[in-house]
C-alpha cells in the first residue's frame, strides 16, 4: 500500500520517466516532497506544470486531501515493489511507479482480452463489440478496455451484462471518469469489476496521457481484439504496444470502403488473426488456460433459427401466429449486423408500414433485433 507521499507524487507527475528521475535524486516519494524548492525548479527534465505542483505552497494540503480521498473511496495504491503489483507489468520498459485500484485486481491466472476500437463506432461496430465482449466474458475471459466512448464502453457493458469480469484502465486520474457520460458505467465497474489508473486523484484527462495508458491495456491482456478502427486510430497505438509486448492481435474484418474498417483490414493484411466468431479467440486461449469454458453453452448465434416449416405455409391460412412468424423470418433475414433504415426493410419486404412495425416490434421483444438508432434496425449481436 502506497503512503500519502506516493499518492501525492503520482498525482503530481504523470510521466513514469520523470518519477524515476526524481526518485533517483531524492530516494523516495517523501524525499521528493521534502526536497528544497531550488532543487526542483533547477531541474532540467521536469515540465513547468510538474515543477509548479511539486513546489506548490499548498503541497501539504494537496497531499492530505489526496490521501483522504484515497482512503474515503476504497482506493488501493500498489507500488512497484509490492507483491500485489501485477506481474503482467513486468514486460513493460516503463512500468508505472504505482497503480491506483478500485474494485478487485484481476487474478493473474485468468486469461484476458483487450477489446478496443473506434470511439465513433458505427452500429455494426457496436453490435460486433457487444457480441464478442459478451461471449468472451461468458466464457470466463476478462475484458480489458479503456472506458472510453464507443467500442470501449460497449465492451465493458457487455461483459458486465454477461456476468463476466472486466477491467477499465483510465487515462485520467483515479476517480476522474472520462468521458463523463460513462460515469454510471464507472460506478458499476467499481462494484463488479476493476478500475485501474497510474495517475493519482484529481489528474484531469490530459491528451498526452492517453497513448501511455494504452500500454497498460495491452500489458494486462493476453491478446488484443480490434473491432473497428479508422486508418489512423488511437486504437492502433494499443496494437503497437501489444506487438512490442508480444501479444496476439485479433481483428474483426469490416466492409471495404468503410472508413471504420480501414484499420482492421490493414492489420489483417499485416498478419493479425482474422476472427469472425468469438469461439475462435476462445479456442486460441483455451490451449494455455484450462479455466476457459470452451463450451459454456451461452453462445449466441449470429443468426436466429426460425422453424423451417414455412414452405408448407398456406397463403390463405387463417393461422395468424404462423403468418406473423413467416413475416418475422422475412424481416429478420433482411436485417444485418449493420443498421438498416425502416424504409429499406419496408421496400424489400413488401409489407405495410403497420405490419412491419408490428413484426419489428415482436423481433425486438424476442431480443434478436434491435433499434440501433431510432428507425434504424439491426440484428442483435
Amino acid at each position: 500500500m502506497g503512503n500519502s507521499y506516493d499518492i501525492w507524487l503520482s498525482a503530481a507527475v504523470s510521466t513514469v520517466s520523470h518519477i524515476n528521475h526524481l526518485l533517483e535524486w531524492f530516494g523516495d516519494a517523501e524525499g521528493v516532497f521534502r526536497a528544497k524548492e531550488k532543487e526542483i525548479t533547477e531541474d532540467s527534465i521536469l515540465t513547468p506544470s510538474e515543477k509548479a505542483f511539486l513546489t506548490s505552497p499548498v503541497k501539504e494540503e494537496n497531499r492530505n486531501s489526496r490521501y483522504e480521498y484515497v482512503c474515503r473511496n476504497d482506493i488501493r495504491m500498489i507500488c512497484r515493489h509490492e507483491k500485489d503489483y501485477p506481474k503482467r507489468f513486468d514486460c513493460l520498459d516503463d512500468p508505472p511507479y504505482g497503480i491506483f485500484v478500485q474494485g478487485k485486481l484481476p487474478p493473474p491466472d485468468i486469461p484476458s482480452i483487450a477489446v478496443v476500437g473506434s470511439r465513433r463506432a458505427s452500429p455494426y461496430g457496436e453490435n460486433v463489440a457487444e457480441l464478442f465482449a459478451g461471449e468472451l466474458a461468458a466464457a470466463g475471459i476478462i475484458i480489458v478496455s479503456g472506458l472510453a466512448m464507443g467500442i470501449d464502453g460497449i465492451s465493458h457493458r457487455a461483459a458486465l451484462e454477461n456476468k463476466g469480469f472486466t477491467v477499465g484502465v483510465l487515462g485520467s486520474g483515479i476517480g476522474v471518469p472520462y468521458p463523463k457520460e460513462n460515469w454510471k458505467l464507472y460506478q458499476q465497474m467499481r462494484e463488479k469489476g476493476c478500475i485501474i489508473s497510474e495517475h493519482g486523484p484529481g489528474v484531469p484527462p490530459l491528451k498526452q496521457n492517453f497513448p501511455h495508458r494504452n500500454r497498460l491495456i495491452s500489458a494486462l491482456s493476453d491478446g488484443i481484439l480490434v473491432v473497428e478502427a479508422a486508418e489512423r486510430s488511437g486504437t492502433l497505438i494499443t496494437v503497437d504496444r501489444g506487438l512490442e509486448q508480444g501479444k496476439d492481435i485479433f481483428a474483426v474484418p469490416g466492409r471495404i470502403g468503410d472508413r471504420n474498417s480501414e484499420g482492421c483490414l490493414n492489420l489483417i493484411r499485416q498478419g493479425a488473426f482474422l476472427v469472425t466468431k468469438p469461439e475462435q479467440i476462445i479456442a486460441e486461449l483455451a490451449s494455455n488456460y484450462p479455466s476457459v469454458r470452451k463450451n459454456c453453452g451461452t453462445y449466441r448465434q449470429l443468426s436466429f433459427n426460425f422453424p423451417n416449416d414455412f414452405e408448407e405455409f398456406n397463403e390463405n391460412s387463417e393461422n395468424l401466429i404462423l403468418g406473423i412468424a413467416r413475416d418475422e423470418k422475412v424481416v429478420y433475414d433482411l436485417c444485418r449486423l449493420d443498421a438498416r433504415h425502416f424504409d429499406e426493410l419496408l421496400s424489400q419486404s413488401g409489407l405495410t408500414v403497420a405490419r412491419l412495425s408490428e413484426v419489428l416490434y415482436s423481433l425486438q421483444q424476442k431480443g434478436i433485433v434491435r433499434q440501433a438508432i431510432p428507425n434504424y434496425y439491426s440484428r442483435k449481436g
Partner: protein
Amino acid sequence: MFCVINSFALVGIDAQPVRVEVDVGNGLPGINLVGSLSAEVREARERVRVALRNAGYPVPAKKITVNLSPADIRKEGTGFDLAIAIGILTGLELIPQELVKGTCFLGEIGLDGVLRPVPGALSCAYAAKEEGYRSIYVPTENGQEAGMVEGIDVYAVRTLSDVIESFLGDQLLEPLVREFHADPTETEEDFADISGQFLAKRGAVIAAAGGHNLLLLGPPGSGKTMLAKRIPGILPAITPEESIELTKIYSVAGLIRPEAGRIMTRPFRNPHHTCTLAGMAGGGARLPVPGEITLATGGVLFLDELPEFRRECIEVLRQPLEEHRVVISRLYGNYTLPASFLLVAAMNPCPCGYFPDRNRCNCSPDRIRRYMGKISQAVIDRIDLCVEMSAVPFQDLSERTRGPSSKEIRAEVERCRMIQAERYRDESFRLNARLPSSALDKYCVMTPEAERKLASAFRSKGFSARLYDRIRRVGRTIADLAGSEKIGEEHITEAVMYHATDIGRRHEQYGKFV
C-alpha cells in the same frame, strides 16, 4: 359646426370603430388633432390640408379641432386621413352631414389627393358591416380585399376628389362588384413527387389527420423540406370561416397583393432560423404585426434546422402550441392573435448532418448529444411524431415509384377528420392531438392485446408517463385512419415507432451504446 365621421382602428387583427369628431369654429386659425395619436396620425394635419387645397377646397382660416374618439385607445397608421378630410369638409358645411351618416372612410391621402392603401382593410370592412354601416370608402388597392365582406357597399376610390364628387357632383359612384376566386388553386407540389421515404410520408399523413406536430430528422438532401412543403396540400380544404380569418391576418400584416382575393390555400410559413422573437411571435413597436406563428394559422409552420433557431424563439412556441393563440403585450395594451398551426420541424441528426453514416460523419457522441440537447424539452413534449429519415439511395430516386397523390391523401385525411369531429361533437376540441389527458381513457380504448404490447414496451424501453399519453393519441389517429373503433396491436406498435426518435430517449440511447 360640429360633425362626426366614422372610421376604424386596428386592434390585433380586428378593427374597432373610431369616431372622427370635427368642430369648426372661430378662434386662432389652425387644425388641431387630439385623441391619443401617434406621430403619423398627427401628421395627417399637413397631408389633409394640402390635399384639400389641391382638390380645390382650401381650408379657410378657422379654428378646426379634430378628436379621434374613444380618446383612450392609441391610434396608429395613416388610415384616418380620408375620414379627417371628409370631416373637415362636413364641418365646413360643404358636404351635408346626412350624406355621410351611416358610411365610413378608410385610407391614406397623398398631397396630390391620391388615396393610398392601408393594412387591415378587410378587418375594417368586416367591422363596418358588424356595426351596421351602409357603406365604406376604401382606396382602390384595398377594394378587392374589403369587397370580400358581403352585406355592405364597398366604394373603391382613387382620389380624394372622387370621394367629394360622389357627394356633391352628379357623378355617382358604383359600389364594387364582387369577384370571387372561389376555387382553391391546386398547388404544384404533390406528394407523389416524393420517392421512397415511406415512413416519413406516413408520419406526415398521421400528422395531418390528427393535427399532431411532427419532427423530421435526416441528413441534408433527404427531402425534409420537400416533404414539409407538401403537408398543407394534404390538410383538409380550407373552410370559409378559416379563409376569412386568414385573409384578415394577411390584410393586417399588409401581405395581400391588391389583385389577390381571399386566401383560399392553407399557408406554409418557412421562417429562416435567424428569425427574431418579434418576427416569430408577432410584435413591432406600435401595432402588433402578426408573427410567423399567426401567419401560419390553419396551415403549417415549418422550422427548418430547429436547433439553429434562437432559444427564445422556440420557447415562445409553448403557449401557442398549448392554447392555439398568442398574447402580445405592448405599451398600449395586450393583443390576442390567433396562432393555431401544425408545427413541422426538421433537423439534422448531428452537427455535420450525416449520422449514422460513419463514412461521412465524424461527430463524436458527445457532440451529437449536445446538438440534440439544444432543443428544449418543453417543445419536444409537444411534438407527438418523430421520424428519422434516411438518405435516399440512388436506385430509389431513379425508380420513381409514384405513391398516392396529394389529392388522394387529402381525401383520406378528411375522412379521418370526420371521424374525429363526430366522436368529439360534444367536446371543445376536434382533433386527436388536442385530446386532454383527462379524456384519454374515454376516447382511446385499446384492445387487450394492444394494452399488453404497450405495457411491455414501456417496461422494456423505460418510457415516461408523458410519453404514454402521446403514444395513445397517435395510436388513436392511426386507428382512425384504418377506420378502427378500438386501438389495435398494429396501431400501437406503429405509434411506438414514431416515438423511438424522441429526443429525450435519444440521449439515453446514445448513452447506452456509445
